[in-house]
């Protein structure tokens, strides 16, 4: 994806030799612990996004207003993203070259940007459904829901592929 940039190489080499990076590299429990927290946060985001998408598809909580479903599950899409960014940052500091220069990582970040935009759009649609019933599950809402599911799936897949590419 991103071509081999000299400044990126230099930055990765510099970061790799900083004190925090050395600590992450040498203390054996840090990386697995951070990855467990990362995965648990993804679980919160993915399941919450799933419930929101199911509401937009008309397959969950039709008896509740879109607003109510959004109020229950949207915070668990947004807040864990902060934990994901923090734990992700620790992993990057630990292995800058293997992450920042990795096509799977770059793809994951592109998909994440897409997922965040789609989540904002989903949020808007749900807030425009103040009553119970199938209102707010039109073609556009359904398309957004499918797109959201595909993007989050892609993010999880790309995340796992960082270890292989």
């Amino acid at each position: 994806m991103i071509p081999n940039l000299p400044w990126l190489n230099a930055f990765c080499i510099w970061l790799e030799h900083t004190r925090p990076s050395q600590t992450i590299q040498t203390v054996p429990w840090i990386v697995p612990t951070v990855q467990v927290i990362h995965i648990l946060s993804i679980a919160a985001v993915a399941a919450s996004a799933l419930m929101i998408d199911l509401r937009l598809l008309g397959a969950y909580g039709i008896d509740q207003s879109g607003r109510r479903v959004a109020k229950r599950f949207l915070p668990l899409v947004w807040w864990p993203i902060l934990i994901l960014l923090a734990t992700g940052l620790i992993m990057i500091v630990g292995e800058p070259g293997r992450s920042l220069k990795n096509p799977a990582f770059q793809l994951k970040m592109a998909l994440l940007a897409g997922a965040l935009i789609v989540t904002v759009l989903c949020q808007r649609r749900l807030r425009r459904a103040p009553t119970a019933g199938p209102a707010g599950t039109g073609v556009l809402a359904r398309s957004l829901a499918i797109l959201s599911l595909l993007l989050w799936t892609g993010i999880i897949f790309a995340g796992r592929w960082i270890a292989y590419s």
Partner: protein
Amino acid sequence: MALDDWLHWLEATEIATAVRENEVLFPWIESVHVLAIVLVIGTISIVDLRLLGLASRDRAVSRLIREVLPYTWGAFLVAALTGSLLFCSNAMTYGHNFFFRGKLVLLVLAGCNMAVFHLFVGRHIGRWSAAPQPPWSAKTTGAVSLGLWISVVAFGRWIGFTLH
């Protein structure tokens, strides 16, 4: 040892060899495995948090279970299938790994906890299903479930760091 014979045999099967030797098969199966596990724990914790009286209090427990658990089960089947494929590919190594064995024990315990819920705790669910705060017995099974599934993820991730 009979177990080792079985692990060796498993590892030598055609499907295990394919997963082991094909360069992209393992990561693809692993990706599906991670997606499935993430959905298992994510969806089951929606129910667990309701049992604990911490979230979705405006929805009856029995209803939430009916709506959410089918996704948990679907994801669990996918996780079990992909997990079995990954296990076969290096059966000997995984079979002797502490965290792999521990993960299986935790899964059995999660199954027992679920059985306890369905056989005892949930028997009179109609009486408290709509109450924002379920009885302490239901809260306990919710907390145990949450703890066990978090441990399953932790043990699962540790397998990858303790293979040699």
